């Protein structure tokens, strides 16, 4: 077991290194930090622009491999260089990482659990009202991109707020700045800010997992081992959960690994639209600001997350499927 995990881990480590290098190279060749400094009036002398760019290690006249080396060697020690505004990338990252991680963790846990539950209910009640409504709802939700869903939620929240008469649901930021009061006030305030962004991410996740869980569960429902479990005296409910669900969960591990990349992309939209200052918002702003170092770091961050998701999927697979010996 340990040996297998170690081998996977080394494999993943190499992939992260390659993905980060690729991200840096693409960012360094495609973005033009020079235009940030040149486009001023009166135009600054070339020497001063070069000096500024050299200080940031973003001068496009330096060969890209040299720039990469200058960035990558300190990066291995946790120093990811400077943003285009001269701030340290690692400081900013420390501040933003938590926001994104919280969003992703809650999104995948709530989405996964509710999605699986909905899929199981749908399969057990196949061709009944519950099943049809769940199916139609998830097809519709899967056709709505996160950015449109977020806007629709905003409009809906405004209507709710108008109806209630005071602000029940907030749609900007994570908390009300400068809020007084005790712990409870802060908690409710956070929660009021948290509902809409989470919904915008979680609805799609629920729809996605419920579709696959439903078909996996349907495959299992007709199987002999489930009939046997009931024949030996297990109640249907117990048989379904202990034998049926466990088997039907196995393919979900693979889908989790694939879906995580899409969840990351969704988080970019959620953060940007609801004004959460996380990694996704940082990424979009950095691409528009030609901030090479930051873009490379966010790429590395997402590569690490995707691979952690893959690792979790591997472990879940091993835990669920007794045929897997590792």
């Amino acid at each position, binding site marked *: 077991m340990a040996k297998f995990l170690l081998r996977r881990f080394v494999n993943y480590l190499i992939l992260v290194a390659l993905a980060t290098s690729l991200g840096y190279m693409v960012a360094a060749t495609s973005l033009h930090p020079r235009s940030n400094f040149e486009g001023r009036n009166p135009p600054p002398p070339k020497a001063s622009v070069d000096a500024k760019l050299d200080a940031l290690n973003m001068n496009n006249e330096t060969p890209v491999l040299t720039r990469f080396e200058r960035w990558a060697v300190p990066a291995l020690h946790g120093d990811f260089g400077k943003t285009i505004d001269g701030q340290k990338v690692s400081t900013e990252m420390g501040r933003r990482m938590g926001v994104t991680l919280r969003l992703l963790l809650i999104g995948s846990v709530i989405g996964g659990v509710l999605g699986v539950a909905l899929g199981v209910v749908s399969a057990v009640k196949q061709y009944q009202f519950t099943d049809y409504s769940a199916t139609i709802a998830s097809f519709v939700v899967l*056709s709505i*991109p996160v*950015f449109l869903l977020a*806007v629709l939620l905003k409009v809906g929240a405004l209507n709710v707020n108008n109806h209630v008469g005071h602000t029940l649901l907030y749609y900007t930021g994570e908390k009300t700045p400068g809020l007084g009061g005790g712990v409870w006030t802060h908690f409710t305030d956070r929660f009021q800010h948290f509902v809409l962004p989470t919904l915008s991410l979680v609805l799609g996740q629920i729809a996605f997992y419920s579709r696959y869980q439903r078909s996996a569960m349907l495959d299992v429902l007709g199987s002999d081992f489930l009939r046997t479990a009931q024949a030996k005296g297990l109640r249907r409910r117990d048989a379904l959960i202990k034998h049926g669900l466990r088997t039907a969960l196995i393919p979900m591990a693979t889908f989790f690994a694939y879906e995580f990349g899409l969840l990351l992309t969704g988080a970019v939209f959620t953060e940007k639209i609801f004004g959460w200052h996380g990694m996704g918002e940082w990424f979009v702003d950095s691409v528009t600001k030609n901030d090479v170092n930051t873009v490379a770091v966010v790429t590395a961050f997402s590569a690490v997350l995707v691979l952690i998701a893959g690792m979790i999927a591997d472990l879940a697979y091993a835990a669920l499927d007794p045929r897997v010996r590792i």
Partner: protein
Amino acid sequence: MPAEIEPSPAIAVEAALVEDLEDVTRGRLVLRRFLRKKIAVGGLIVLVLLIAFAFGGPYLSKWDYRSTDYNSFLQKPSSTHWFGTTQIGQDVYAQTLRGLQKSLVIGLLTAFFSTGLAAAVGASAGYFGGWTDRVLMWFVDLLLVLPQFLIIAILSPSFRGKTWLVFVFLLAAFSWMVTARIVRGLTLSLKEQEFVQAARFTGVPARKIIFRHLLPNMSSFLIIDATLNVGGAILAETGLSYFGFGVQSPDVSLGTLIAAGTRSAITFPWLFLFAGGALIITVLSVSVIGDGLRDALDPNSATSIKP
């Protein structure tokens, strides 16, 4: 024991039935199964209407998506401007149709290229095995680590000002990996079958085996995958365009329209509602068609929507 065996009436009836069944070609059988799914047929009708509307609709109105009407800014839908006007007097109807055209074309082209690329890479990896397989699958792993959105967003400055076809190629280039893995798996089991072995031992070159024997045998899967990819491609395109990383002005796509409309979504809902509605209906109809095709082409797979 009678010397000759008279065919019993039952066998004769069965033979007639078989003959009858043989008249039904596979294509007709698939069509019949597809037509039985009313939702999928509905999706197909809606999609055809949408395409007709996107390309024929502009001729019904006198406004062009680039023209501006200086007499009406931010007007509600009316008889002159069917879907209303924007802040600078552009006609929302003309813009929505233009955006729909772009999104549809980009979605269809991307899905086609993406599935094609996946088929070629996956089949080569599976058929040749060994180092080809290892290198290609490593490449797949590497690309799977980088979310498509991130990498195309980073690349966006390099195709700004160039033709939108570059954008299509990029979308396709970063969306084929999962399909390629499945194609590889299918190839691994197909290549052990007699007809492929026979072809190989009679000296048919590998390229011909892949394109003439392997890929046609997984055409059902490829068709379904391409259809489902259309929806994914449209969602990816609109998402990138939403942030300005995709289709560039003066051209419009549903993504740029929704982005422009959401800034004032609450006060002037017509600015994004038509584009948003068109987007949802398009993706929904494509995914329903894909689902129906899966049931029609591959009846053993678990169905998602029954009737």
